[in-house]
């Protein structure tokens, strides 16, 4: 049965538990916005529900449930635990001001943050659909205000730049920029899956 990696540390799980507990108004708004990003995963008849169902199959929940029933709220909780720390990191980017890198970087853009939060959930579901392990990304920003996800596995580096409505990738597996780097758009499910298969191969 395919296994799902749960690389989240105890600290990260604590972070998840802490999310709604911010005292300030901005903290509440941040929490709410992050949680809205996965509202598409609520049970229903739409595409998101179908994806949830596929996740359930792949993580074995459908068969292993003690009740023998498919439990969407349970799956949602699993998905949330895996992806929510990343969503929080994405929304935290909105607190970075201009010049956040000590030089002249632009502050992360709100539209990029919103799109990145949707994109990463779709990527996670694509990986689950492949029956492969998920690795939590490094979340940062580009100097242009894009959201940047990075994964590294041995010599391979996968970098995703998320703009307002667009995702671009750079694959890097060595110093030669012609023969050991590739780039392109990462907006489709097929491309995202290919990227993950490349990273994990």
């Amino acid at each position, binding site marked *: 049965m395919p296994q799902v990696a749960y690389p989240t540390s105890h600290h990260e799980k604590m972070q998840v538990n802490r999310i709604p507990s911010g005292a300030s108004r901005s903290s509440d708004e941040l929490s709410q916005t992050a949680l809205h990003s996965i509202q598409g995963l609520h049970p229903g008849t739409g595409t998101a529900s179908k994806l949830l169902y596929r996740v359930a199959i792949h993580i074995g929940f459908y068969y292993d449930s003690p009740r023998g029933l498919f439990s969407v709220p349970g799956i949602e909780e699993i998905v949330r635990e895996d992806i929510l720390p990343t969503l929080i990191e994405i929304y935290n980017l909105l607190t970075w001001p201009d010049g*956040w*890198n*000590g030089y*002249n970087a632009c502050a992360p853009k709100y539209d990029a943050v919103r799109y990145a939060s949707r994109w990463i959930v779709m990527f996670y579901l694509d990986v689950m659909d492949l029956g492969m392990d998920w690795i939590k990304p490094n979340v*940062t920003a580009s*100097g242009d205000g894009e959201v940047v996800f990075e994964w590294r596995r041995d010599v391979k580096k996968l970098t995703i730049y998320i703009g307002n409505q667009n995702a671009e990738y750079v694959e890097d597996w060595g110093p030669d*920029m012609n023969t050991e780097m590739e*780039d392109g758009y990462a907006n489709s499910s097929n491309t995202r899956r290919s990227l993950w298969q490349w990273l994990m191969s």
Partner: protein
Amino acid sequence: MMPENFVGNDEILYRRVLPGRNHYKFKPDETIEISSQAFYDPELRISVDRANLCDNNPKRTLGNGSGVLSLVTIDVRSVVDLSREENQKQVIERFRIDVEPVPLPNNSAHAEIHAIPSFTDFDKKRAFKRLCQRLARLAEARKWEIRPTSE
């Protein structure tokens, strides 16, 4: 003594990296992974400080709690094969990478890594991102001038 108006090939270049921005990551073997975003600049010219003009003291590049990594000028100038492409990988421009002094009123050691001919916004899609990837690998191959103390 290096002339101030030319960056010599053997000159060391310092780049500040702030904590809390996920631009580096400590690995279990105590090495540090460096993100390509540590070099990303919206104006496509990457600021560095010339070590020679900082008395070879990276603390002069230091910000609050930051680390300082370094590059060697000749390694930067050796970055080749960067190009601008259109229509199914047809090369329409080839770049070379250089380092030039850009002294500031408050920092005479300031220099910039840039492309010749200059990158344009179009090159943000490909060439500049590749350059940042390459610079991160070059920096990783060297020891930190000032090792950051936290992520």
